[in-house]
């Protein structure tokens, strides 16, 4: 167990935005909350999943909803802590530690905020290793763990507990409805996990990974080195393509941002990337070049800053890189949940690292 330093939280915000793979929302408000809490003297501790006893109770948290709404409603560290407290009251037992469901984007900071208020440590793990749009797209769902109960809270004081769901898709549907009623944003405490479940099904060390990634970018920018090269080196990634955005096509269907963007390279070569909140498949001349579950990141070619699917626009100079997927998603069951077919593409997953 160790205490997280303030500058590590700054780096986490940068790294988590890259791991958002185009979605997940900005970590900025979470970062501001953490700066305030650290100024007040609060400190957050990080523990590895191996430090958990098998029967430890672990809270699993995330904010659910539209990142755009957060831009106006802001983030309140007390909200996610309240979701955990409501869960504790419902279960009648206390949590030993808290973890995030999603290391990509704004949700990376949620477990830190909960931990700051509750005085329990954060686990160095998540259940996505990146950002994904739906509840069944987690390593816990791949592991067939129970999807319920789930607590949703809003800032007005409304609280809803979904006590049962026949499967993860039903949990997604029911809790999404609640989220929409709350104003398309809700702080949620997901189905609690045991220490054994986290050790077996959690994706380990993603918190330190995001921090390491953030450090690499910050340090490269400070010394005018190429930040993209630094990212590739830090995470054993692969550069796929560099060019200019020449078209973006977006539509909202079933509450998701879907669309495609075309990138023109130096010569006549061009690629297309399809997205559903996050970047899903890269195409070149009709053939897939890369796809989920590997992490497709579109970065500003100059600064290495990640560019989200909501922010991408004509004329931006971008570099597309791919980072390795957590191993659990490369298994047949993992691919069922988050492989290309889970997003409606009838193609086999083929690793760029093969």
């Amino acid at each position: 167990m160790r205490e997280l330093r303030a500058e590590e939280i700054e780096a986490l915000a940068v790294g988590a935005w890259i791991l958002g793979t185009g979605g997940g929302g900005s970590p900025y408000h979470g970062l501001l909350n953490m700066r305030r809490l650290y100024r007040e003297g609060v400190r957050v501790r990080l523990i590895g999943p191996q430090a958990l006893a098998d029967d430890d109770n672990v809270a699993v948290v995330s904010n659910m909803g539209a990142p755009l709404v957060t831009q106006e409603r802001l983030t309140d560290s007390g909200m996610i802590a309240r979701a955990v407290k409501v869960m504790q009251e419902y279960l009648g037992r206390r949590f030993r530690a808290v973890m995030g469901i999603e290391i990509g984007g704004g949700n990376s900071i949620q477990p830190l905020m909960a931990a700051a208020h509750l005085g329990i440590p954060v686990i160095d793990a998540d259940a996505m290793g990146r950002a994904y749009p739906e509840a069944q797209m987690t390593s816990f769902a791949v592991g067939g763990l129970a999807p319920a109960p789930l607590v949703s809270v809003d800032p007005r004081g409304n609280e809803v507990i979904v006590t049962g769901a026949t499967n993860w898709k039903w949990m997604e549907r029911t809790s999404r409805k609640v989220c929409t009623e709350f104003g398309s944003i809700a702080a949620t405490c997901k189905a609690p996990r045991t220490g054994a479940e986290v050790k077996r099904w959690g994706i380990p060390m993603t918190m330190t990974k995001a921090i390491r990634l953030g450090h690499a970018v910050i340090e490269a920018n400070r010394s005018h080195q190429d930040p993209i090269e630094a990212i590739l080196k830090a995470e054993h990634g692969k550069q796929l393509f560099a060019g200019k955005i020449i078209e973006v096509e977006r539509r909202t269907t079933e509450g998701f941002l879907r669309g495609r963007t075309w990138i023109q390279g130096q010569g006549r070569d061009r690629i297309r990337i399809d997205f559903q909140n996050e970047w899903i498949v890269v195409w070149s001349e009709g053939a897939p070049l890369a796809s989920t579950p590997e992490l497709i990141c579109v970065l500003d070619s100059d600064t290495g800053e990640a560019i989200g699917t909501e922010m991408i626009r004509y004329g931006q100079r971008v570099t597309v890189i791919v980072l390795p997927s957590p191993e659990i998603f490369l298994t047949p069951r993992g691919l069922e949940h988050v492989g290309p077919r889970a997003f409606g593409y009838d193609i086999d997953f083929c690793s760029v690292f093969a």
Partner: protein
Amino acid sequence: MKRIGIDVGGTNTDAVLMTDGCVEAAVKVPTTPDVTGGILHAIGRLRRRMRDGAEIAGVLIGTTHFTNAVVQRRDLTRIAAIRIGAPATAALPPFCDWPADLATLVDGGSWIIEGGHEFDGRPFLPLDIARARQAAREIRARDLRYVAVTSMFSSLNPAHEDAVAEILCEEIPEVSVTCSHLLGGIGLLERENATLLNASLVALARRIGTGFERALAQSGLLAPLYMTQNDGTVATATHASTLPVFSIASGPTNSMRGGAYLSNLQDAIVIDVGGTTADFGHLRSGFPRQANTVVHVGGVRTLFRMPDLVSIGLGGGSLVSPDGMAIGPRSVGYRLIEDALVFGGNRLTATDVAVAAGLAEIGDRSKVAHLSPTLIEGVLARVRSMIETNADRVKIQAGDAVLLAVGGGSFLVPDRLEGVSRVVRVEHGGCANAVGAAIAQVSGEVDQVFQGLERAEAISRARALAEHRAVDAGADSGSLSLVEVEDTPIAYLPGNALRVRVKVVGDIQSVERRSSDGSEIRHHHT
């Protein structure tokens, strides 16, 4: 067509007379404390080049006053902040991400009250009217007269901001209210920051605006007056004096646009050294490189579309400590011609050191003959290092770059610099900012979420609204063209929610047109 472009800096007032895009005359005179005198002086000197005033289509003024006020932390008014959105948003109160020294000057207290809206314009909670009235009374008791009001999703539904503004007007005599929906944009903190800055600048803007109007009236020119804005476009002076944040970065924007125009350079670092500040930016394909998303003004995060700039407190009027160890950020500003040693004053400025070193011929060189070579070398070395460090900060790749030096204080820029392949100076470069002002257009912008509309319908509504705003701001409705359109369906929001950003620009409406169609300048309430 003839236009006069004027840049009122903290130190100098620059003016150019442009005929069909060519600089016919350029003058530089000291800025006066009342602003009016300097402008009158400059126009007076330009008039020798005109047959009569009637041929002037417009006088376009840019000023660095607002950015100087924020950077130097002076001439700012202490304000009250009302946020509508409790119990949400309260964890990150107004001023929460401001530099401490600036917050100390401006923050007169915050009131966070219940109310605000959802993304679709429905109320989040009813507005707490009683609490709003109580806040107004407390603000009055604290003797605060400038108030910033920001409500959740007010760019979609301004009702709660308007209601609170009305209560403030009832409770506080002569109150000045800035409502955030007038500044636009989605992102509560960033919009609020802009609103807070605006409220703290309104008093200064009114003083300066009055000075501009008076100068123009006294000069005898009948041309309409415009003020330039951050994006290189202009608004009518009345509009601009209520919304000074829209002009906060206009000085450096004008310099960069003017510098690009005069030099024809496509890719270069631009440094604009004025009397008080030096601004560093990057020209790419002939245009100032825009900041991608978030722009910091004096350390405050905002969402303005403006060039990506680094500003430091270094200019011709920067105060130099007697031992030469410290330069700026304080500047004698327009008092250069009284206070600087070369003008017989008793304050050591960067200009004095440059004159002593033979870099500039200003004032009386004999008055700085006593400065020791060690001090001169030390100061110049420090200036060089400040320029090298910051030119490097705006670079987007390692390696040498061309550096375009403009502005009245550009004599401080050495010909040889680390990381710079060559230093370029252009004719009228000292007045690049005034040239940038003279070539400005009028714009209107919209950034709003539309629901339940087809994409084409949403864009066309946004465009109509933007055109309306542009005409309000002084554009000729016949010349409007669409320069930016961006639509983003919003993930997770039901009802085909579409965020549409539209910007239109047009030429300045001519005097004849304005009087013939009887259009009036609308007064936005602030």
